[in-house]
């Protein structure tokens, strides 16, 4: 950017940097990074200095800070030159959209397919009308709630306790029952519509296998669903009577079958296994040197020089006789 140098109030950041650098280091700042090597993603408040960093010494922290401050100065300069509005504490700038793309966390959401009604409404241009809570009652000349306490009386909904029979009514049909039946029919139809919508959306049952499942997978899914349903009782299947030929699922136990039974042989082997891990009996050796040292430490009058010394290579076992073997529990 070319600036008119006669306007002294406007000094570019680069000039400042060069001046400061020249002042501090005594050179013309040619060692410092040039603005041409800089690129930015202001939308992410990021700056990239794309030049060689061979001269950077990671252990010279003051120098690292100085070099970083030059790059940050460039970034701050760019951010401050964005279009801005006054805000509390200073100014707010409008950041441009980010230029570097970063991967998303989750896939792009699929727009939900429209239901039959939504398609129809879109086609006809029907807008959803938001109903107000209060409705004007012409009879009482008041604003009343549409539903709930002190609601506006609706002749169609609230049938009086006595209804005069019309010309065609012969008393076989009760108007209250009729109304109740109509209401139930409406609700059933709505439920069917909702279920149909769900199917059309492709939402299957909770435990259903996917549509492209293999026969074996479908069978497995059915068995899994059956076992889940079988124990879906108040006591989770614990006290249910079995049907003829039905196998109940295995009760969950805390210990495995092995651990629960009293198998002496195996128990011994297992305990020894554990012991071996702590103190390896099979490879245990007696270091006479150490042993002697330990003994001498509580024998009176023994001095270091008097101790019998054996070479380090002499790892000798005390005994290999039957008694020792028995004591160490070898053989099992």
């Amino acid at each position, binding site marked *: 950017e070319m600036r008119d140098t006669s306007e002294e109030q406007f000094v570019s950041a680069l000039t400042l940097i060069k001046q400061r650098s020249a002042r501090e280091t005594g050179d013309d700042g040619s060692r410092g990074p040039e603005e041409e090597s800089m690129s930015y993603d202001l939308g992410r408040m990021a700056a990239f200095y794309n030049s060689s960093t061979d001269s950077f010494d990671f*252990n010279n922290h003051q120098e690292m800070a100085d070099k*970083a401050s030059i790059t940050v100065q460039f970034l701050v300069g760019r951010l401050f030159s964005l279009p801005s509005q006054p805000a509390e504490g200073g100014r707010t700038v409008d950041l441009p959209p980010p230029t570097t793309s970063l*991967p998303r966390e989750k896939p792009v959401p699929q727009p939900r397919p429209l239901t039959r009604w939504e398609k129809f409404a879109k086609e006809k241009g029907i807008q959803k009308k938001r109903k107000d809570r209060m409705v004007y009652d012409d009879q009482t000349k008041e604003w009343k709630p549409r539903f709930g306490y002190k609601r506006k009386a609706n002749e169609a909904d609230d049938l009086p306790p006595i209804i005069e029979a019309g010309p065609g009514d012969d008393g076989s049909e009760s108007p209250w029952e009729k109304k109740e039946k109509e209401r139930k029919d409406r609700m059933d139809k709505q439920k069917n519509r909702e279920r149909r919508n769900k199917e059309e959306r492709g939402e299957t049952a909770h435990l259903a296998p996917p549509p492209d499942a293999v026969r074996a997978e479908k069978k497995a899914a059915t068995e899994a669903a059956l076992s889940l349903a079988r124990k879906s009782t108040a006591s989770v299947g614990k006290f249910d009577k079995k049907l003829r030929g039905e196998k109940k699922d295995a009760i969950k136990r805390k210990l495995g079958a092995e651990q629960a039974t009293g198998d002496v042989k195996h128990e011994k082997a297992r305990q020894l296994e554990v012991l071996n891990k702590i103190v390896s009996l099979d490879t245990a050796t007696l270091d006479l040197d150490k042993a002697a040292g330990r003994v001498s430490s509580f024998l009176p009058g023994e001095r270091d020089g008097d101790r019998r010394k054996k070479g380090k290579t002499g790892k000798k076992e005390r005994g290999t006789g039957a008694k020792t073997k028995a004591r160490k529990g070898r053989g099992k």
Partner: protein
Amino acid sequence: VMSKSPTQQKVQNAPIRIKRKPRNARAKRVMLARDPKVREEDRRTLFMRGTHTTEIITDILKNLHDMKKPDSRYLPRRIEKHPFEDDTSIEFLCEKNESSFFGFGSHSKKRPNNLILGRTFNYKVYDMYEFGVSNIKTMDDFKPSKFPNYCNSPCVVFQGDGFDHNPKLVDVKSLFLDMFQHAPSEKLNLTGLEHVVVLTAKGEKVAFRHYGILLKKSGSKVPRVVLEELGPRFDLELRRNRSAAPDVAREAARVPKQQAASAKLGKNLERNAMGDTVGRVHMQAQSLDQLQVAPPMPPHAARARLSRLVLMQTRKVKGLKRSRDAGEGDAAKRARGAGDESP
């Protein structure tokens, strides 16, 4: 949402995730919050330790956790499985904690002071990078005069052409740009420029430095920058890495149509300063000499037509007296008698 029912174990097709129907409103809110969104807001980080760690690497993890609060969680429990050997643990924990960034610190003879930083996409590891950490100084050892405000997003600066030329460092750059900042916003209050993370690449090593920005008065509109180290300070040496598989990378890079559409209205449409949506109608070239024009109406017909139009307009205005012109006569009566439909 991963189901733990015996169905999952029995049915062979494991990758299918069964969506549990929420049984109450609170569960439904949580489920909706976890659904994919068009515009993703702040992503959470999960910091974990392996079976063996050193005090230093634990401190680094804790410092990074502090930097990323409140969108960060530090797990007190140690994780047995090493991410590069078995990533099921990481994936499970990141899903349960709803985090898409993770940091894993460990120490072994073969890999001392090991730090793994990575991201997930759709609850599966997207990419991860293993670093050896050295030259460490934690945040406690620095005594800056000013701390950045809680939840303030730092600027990020990358120094070194290695970030452009070395393909591994290019990915590392993407990770760091993603990890240390909040979701990008459209406005920035300039007093909020409080701290900056500076990453310098030299060879295969990357220096991580965290400075507070002090803005001093300068001669111009742009203040003078003075940096004050906040810590942590450490150098990273890239060990192993696992980059994103190309098909996953492509899916993760997709921009939703809604986001692209909100930027521009669509072809041919503009919003003018008044807020009106304006479009252009492009006509073919017309030769005005050859225009087919209807023969001019006889004057009485023209007047009748005009008065019909005027009458229809005035009829709409309530209480407006209709002026009866001598010339209107029959045409007016006819118009009135025709009905009250709009023209």
